[in-house]
């Protein structure tokens, strides 16, 4: 079965703290929960299980139970900062019809210029 076994975004040269400090208004996503991707359109939704507001370059209030929604190819074009803290995430399994392949992915801290965040406090 063909699967991408080791997918990653290469390291950048920014300090992660500098990326946050350079963000006047945003959301820092520390952990994503489950999600869903429409592989035909590239549209994705992921739940944020740990996230914080960024205000004037500092992490402030925590945000709960919100969703991130976007389109994969479009989001790749909107990455404007990459940290120097590359790490692999937890490995998982990708498969179908009873077959499974161990897969892993990794990325440094990265910033996306804009993304829709769903919730009730908009």
């Amino acid at each position, binding site marked *: 079965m063909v699967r991408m076994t080791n997918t990653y975004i290469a390291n950048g040269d920014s300090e992660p703290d500098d990326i946050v400090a350079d963000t006047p208004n945003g959301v820092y996503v520390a952990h994503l929960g489950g999600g869903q991707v429409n592989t*035909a359109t590239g*549209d994705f*939704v*992921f739940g944020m299980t740990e996230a914080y507001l960024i205000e004037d370059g500092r992490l402030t209030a925590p945000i709960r139970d919100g969703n991130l*929604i976007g389109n994969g190819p479009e989001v790749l074009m909107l990455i404007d900062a990459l940290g120097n803290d590359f790490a692999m995430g937890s490995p998982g399994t990708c498969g179908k019809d009873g077959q499974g392949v161990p897969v892993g992915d990794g990325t440094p801290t990265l910033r996306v210029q804009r993304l829709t965040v*769903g919730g009730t406090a908009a």
Partner: protein
Amino acid sequence: MHDDDLTGEALASLGDRVVAQAAPGEQIEVVLVHSAETEVRAWEGDIESFASATAHGVGIRVVIDQRQGFAHAGSHDEAVVAETLAAARDNAAFGTPDEFQGLATPDGVAVPEMDLYRPELAAVDPETKIRMALELERATRDGDPRICGVESADYVDSLSVGAVVTSTGIRSIGRDSSCYLSVYSLAADGDETQTGFGFSVGRSVEDLDLQQAAADAVERAVRLLGAGKPATRRTTVVFDPWVTAQFLGIVGSTLSGEAVLKRRSLFADRLGETVAAPVFTLTDDPTDPAAFGAGETDGEGLATRRNELMTAGVLRQFLHNSYTGRRSGTASTGSAVRGYAGTPGVGCMALVATPGDATPDELVAGMDDGVLVQGVTGLHSGVNPVSGDFSTGAEGLRIRNGELAEPIREFTVASTLQRMLLDVLAVGNDLTRLPMTAAGVTLVVADVTVSGE
């Protein structure tokens, strides 16, 4: 499947022989299932996959000295069944004593008689099933010039006969058949791609409407072409029946006696209170033969029954199996759900929101402004059934001046389950059967946050 299996009598007789071995003070329950399933997937005019499987399953539960033991096996061979009983008895010795542990006992509720099994489905040959999957793909592809492909076109069916026999006096036999067609289409315009789906559900192939499933898949994909993001605002949303069915499934999960006992239900302390709008009545009714989840008996062999959960917005009851019923000081509502490979849980089987009088078009015609949500993504990650927080990705159409207007995508809809139930403005008259626990129906909900640009 053989003739004696069609009645389930052979299964129940096997069960009789096992429960006859119950020792004094020991309760034994045997669940026996014989099922056959077929799945066909078409791709570009050919068969991508064809899977056909039959299963013979046995699950045995033993309760002795307030301890429960369980074991299961994939065979009806007498020697295997004897080993399974021995394993269940052995496991019971390791159980934690629990005063509420015990099997169901006959409760006098009459088993509803329904015709859920169509022997003609068992006689449909594989070539016919393959032809339907291929025809479904072709009809979808030919439905509109903007359809550029079909992601999947499936025919699926299932025939099942089961028996539950206990040493406490239960002896029930149930059987059912079902089949469905499902198709996901791809529509393209330039670089843009959209997807749409269509379904048709029945008890035998004669019930299936292939052309309608294909037409729905085509319309849903094509009408999204050119979609942009909506402006962020609070507005009234109209849930398509498919979305409503998913929403009701989540609401139903909060009404299980197990969730209530574990203090994980947001409605735990609210029996008798108004928790939804007066237009909203929610029922779990597996005695309705038209429901996909219809069944004559539950996972413990008790008669299913019509359980009204919310009546005109008032929370009436939770669902129970015999364990959660006893532990809650009430009785089973005939809502034990399980396969042969596990002990009974509690859950909805055939949820339905009582339909209103208005057609979907009439509901939309009454709205100056709003959003029709035709699909949601990430529902399982975006809804917290304990707190009720609700946030999901969505796609659909704007509603302007009483008409469906431009397509929109890549937005989220958010509220809480508690508020959405109270904010229901109307239920449509378009009850739609889907291969899911809940039936679909158009639902109009006020004051939902739509987040886009």
